[in-house]
């Protein structure tokens, strides 16, 4: 339960991070809040030769309202986002969503970028950026680039970033006023990674029909899954119990959950359907009819 021998350097800015990643090659790892990386080191699940500590890259520690979106710097602590009025005003689900990420003590250290780059398919922030169709800002030796959420997560704990690239920020689009947003998940204990989760954003038009819907599920595949087909089925429809039942059925067809020690695939599928109904229901209760 002790980390393996490893090199270490603390970077002061993004250019330094990239230079270190280039220098140390594919065996280097970026160390942010360390809430996932350090236990993996202690278990010897990974043995990087070098750690690039980005905790003191102050330029990446920010919460910025961009009007149409919210921009969160990669080293911003999850707890700082959770308690930020600016973040809550732009993406009202953030405080509640981050409340599911470990415990306060984890969120004091854990960073926004760390959770996204760790790319656990059951984690909350990857599910949020997937549901909202957000963007990931990445920087490497060939300069900065922007990656759509759908193109960022590749496999469990794998992203489309190169070994010499670092995540610098995430952009979360602001949803129109009146949109209700909710997250529902099943975890063995409070603070554990979810077995299955569903995030829903819904807005109703004056006719009572849904005119905006965003849905994503976690824990049901190798990456967070945006439920496009279910979104299409719910758009323009008045949400009745029958409609929600049919949407839940559609979830079943849209996901291919894994079988693992935490839960069988059939359980995950059933729970994804159930949580979809609960999440859409909760989001509807929080929505306001738009003019």
């Amino acid at each position, binding site marked *: 339960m002790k980390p393996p021998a490893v090199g270490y350097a603390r970077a002061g800015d993004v250019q330094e991070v990239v230079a270190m990643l280039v220098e140390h090659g594919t065996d280097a790892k970026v160390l942010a809040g360390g809430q996932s990386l*350090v236990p993996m080191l202690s278990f010897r699940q990974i043995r990087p030769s070098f750690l690039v500590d980005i905790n003191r890259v102050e330029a990446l520690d920010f919460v910025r309202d961009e009007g149409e979106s919210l921009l969160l710097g990669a080293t911003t602590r999850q707890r700082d986002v959770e308690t930020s009025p600016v973040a809550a005003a732009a993406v009202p689900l953030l405080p509640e969503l981050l409340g599911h990420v470990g415990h*306060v003590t984890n969120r004091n250290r854990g960073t926004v970028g760390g959770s996204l780059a760790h790319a656990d398919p059951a984690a909350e922030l990857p599910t949020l950026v997937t549901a909202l169709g957000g963007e990931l800002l990445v920087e490497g030796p060939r300069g900065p680039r922007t990656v759509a959420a759908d193109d960022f997560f590749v496999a469990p704990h794998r992203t489309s970033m190169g070994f010499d690239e670092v995540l610098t920020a995430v952009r979360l689009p602001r949803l129109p006023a009146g949109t209700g947003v909710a997250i529902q998940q099943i975890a063995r204990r409070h603070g554990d990674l979810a077995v299955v989760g569903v995030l829903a954003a819904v807005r109703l038009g004056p006719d009572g029909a849904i005119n905006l819907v965003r849905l994503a599920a976690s824990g049901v595949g190798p990456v967070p899954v945006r439920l496009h087909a279910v979104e299409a089925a719910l758009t323009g429809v008045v949400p009745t119990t029958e409609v929600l039942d049919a949407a839940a059925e559609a979830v079943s067809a849209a996901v291919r959950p894994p079988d693992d020690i935490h839960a069988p695939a059939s359980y995950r599928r059933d729970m994804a359907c159930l949580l979809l109904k609960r999440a859409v229901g909760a989001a509807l209760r929080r929505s306001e009819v738009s003019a």
Partner: protein
Amino acid sequence: MINKQTVSMTINGHVYTGEVEPRLTLADFIRRRCGLTGTHLGCEHGVCGACTIMVDRRTARACLMLAVQADGCTLTTVEGLAEGERLTPLQEAFWNNHGLQCGFCTPGMLMCATELLQTDPDPTAEKVRTCLSGNLCRCTGYDSIVTSVLSAAERLRS
């Protein structure tokens, strides 16, 4: 290739300096190099909460930080809560309400509850439970721990 690094940090008002390998956890630095064994190590992978300390006034799990990361930081461990022999109201509440049995989890419980009471002077029992949900008590004495925190909150408010 893997060079030792010099780290220096303030723990409970005293400056500690040492040469460390990057892989040394902050918890091991505090316990072995500084001799501050009040910070307990249970699981060593961020699940039990026993090693919780304060880093720059916020709780952190000392097993999930490397000592090199705390260079220049200001830390408080459980030894730094009381002023000499005078316990904090929270520590006294644990004493009076049977908030500890074997005492292994107590340092982590005290650090997390201290942080809670600094930000929320009047927490509900549910909030206290949520706050301490990341701290495992192997004696399962949770009820008395929650009672202790609520009692300390009441005393701090009066």
